[in-house]
């Protein structure tokens, strides 16, 4: 990374300075070879304001956000499915049916999805439970 090439919004930074890939949100020049950069961690989604010098930039790899379309199609498709299965499990109120061949009656659907399941889910992350335990209401949500 040369000093002449300033960082741009949308680029990704990886390297020993960070514990996760970071996306550049803001860039402000701060002198001749220093930039104040607003970064968001791709995994933690935490914002950090970091001052980087040209020496720091040499230790970093900068990925441009422009797509080259050279990725692996099968893996991308599988990755999107992995993502969709994760969000469906976590947020789709109908997902509970996926783990059962039983067709509940309408009033049972209403009871589970309109009352119990959503509050259980809003109380703790999906990974806090085994799938079949997600049907139980959380005591923490019924508190007054």
């Amino acid at each position, binding site marked *: 990374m040369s000093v002449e090439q300033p960082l741009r919004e949308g680029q990704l930074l990886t390297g020993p300075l960070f514990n996760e890939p970071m996306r550049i949100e803001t860039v402000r020049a701060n002198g001749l070879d220093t930039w104040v950069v607003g970064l968001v961690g791709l995994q933690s989604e935490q914002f950090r304001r970091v001052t980087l010098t040209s020496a720091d930039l040499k230790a970093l790899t900068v990925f441009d956000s422009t797509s080259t379309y050279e990725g692996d199609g099968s893996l*991308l498709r599988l990755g999107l499915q*992995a993502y969709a299965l994760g969000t469906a499990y976590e947020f789709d109120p109908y997902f509970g049916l996926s783990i059962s061949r039983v067709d509940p009656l*309408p009033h049972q659907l209403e009871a589970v999805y309109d009352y119990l399941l959503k509050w259980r889910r809003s109380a703790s992350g999906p990974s806090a439970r085994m799938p079949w335990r997600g049907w139980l209401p959380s005591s923490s949500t019924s508190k007054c």
Partner: protein
Amino acid sequence: MERKAQAQERRVVPETLARFIREAAGYASLALKPVSRLLHTFEPGRTPQVLQRYERDPDWRLPALVTKYPRLSTDRAIAEEHNLEWVTPGHPLFEAIRRHILDLAQESFKQGVCFYSLAHEAPARIDFYRARAVDGLGRVVHERLFAVELEEEGKVHLREPALLGNFTPVDIANALPVVAHLPEITDYLHEYALRPFLEEVRNERLAEVERVAEHVELSLTELLHKADEEIGRAAAEVEKGAQGAEGRLARAEARHAELLSRRERRRQEMAQQRALTLQGVERLASVLVLPHPERETPEVRRLRPNFETEAIAMRVAMEYEQAQGRQVYDVHEKNLGYDLTSLDLSSGALRLIEVKGIGAETGTVLLTPNERRVAEDRRDCYWLYVVTHCNTEPQLQEPIQDPARFEWHEVTQVKHYYLSVNALTQPMEVRESRPPYGKAN
């Protein structure tokens, strides 16, 4: 009834989960041997280290993975009947595989991918976005994936993310088409996808929060009433000079104050739960879709659907369903792998219907990979409706339940699947043998 049908339609079935972990296991170096006599069942090898490291993720709240899992199934009934490990979302092994695939796919997400499509006549770009609805407490209430297709001349469409199942991955062409360089269509995304998404979640959320708020008000007001009474009793005892009455009064007042503060805090929490904002809107990936180079060859042209014929067939199929008293919806534009959903309001039976039109009395019907996948996964409710004679007097042939039971022939050069039908015989003959045309295997 409609809610039940919606739940049935959206069901993520064991077949889908089994296909996912089978395809994903190779990327994770996890040996997964299918058990021939049991559906959706596998004999796993040792759990590789690459998967075990996910149990050390800060947000991992499942039990640790074990070194080797016993025989497993993605089907709950089979797992219970044969005392197998039931592996499904929420199981540590499934979650580790899912996270591993997501990690591996990041590079391809960043780079983007190029696909061939039989349905596209010109290059297009599909951008995949993630969006979250987050409440005032910082909790992610909902998260969803969106796909927006952009054509070169500027037309934009909202698509189902499963659309990619119909395309064939290819190496990038020498020069990127113009559409690859067009800016993101964020205004369209907000207008037609994100804003409706937020509204939908907000409406659902408001109903839930109001229900809880009502309960909170009722119960805390009742507790406050009781605390008031306790203060009154304690104050009367203080006036009478009863022993220990001042202490009881102090405790009752403290209890009252604590309840008041609790009610205030809960009211504030309720207000924060009602307040939703869109957060984490991010383009996850971008793919280029190019017209399949084989789409104009005589073999493939013959197999490609004719849009006019398809429209006639759709009309006939919908009229038939309505005449049967079923509630039918046209969903063909969503690319879900079927064209119609049809609900029998008396029995609650749901049909996912794929409609195929043929101009003459004989011909072939072509299934896209997506349609074939759904046909295989939803054998319980997937139907194929073939309308013949679309060029003259359209005739709906006897609907075919579970068309996946037939041996469909793969058209290898375009990865689609066909079946020959002959309506000259009654009932319609479905021929699985190879016809004298096409380069099918």
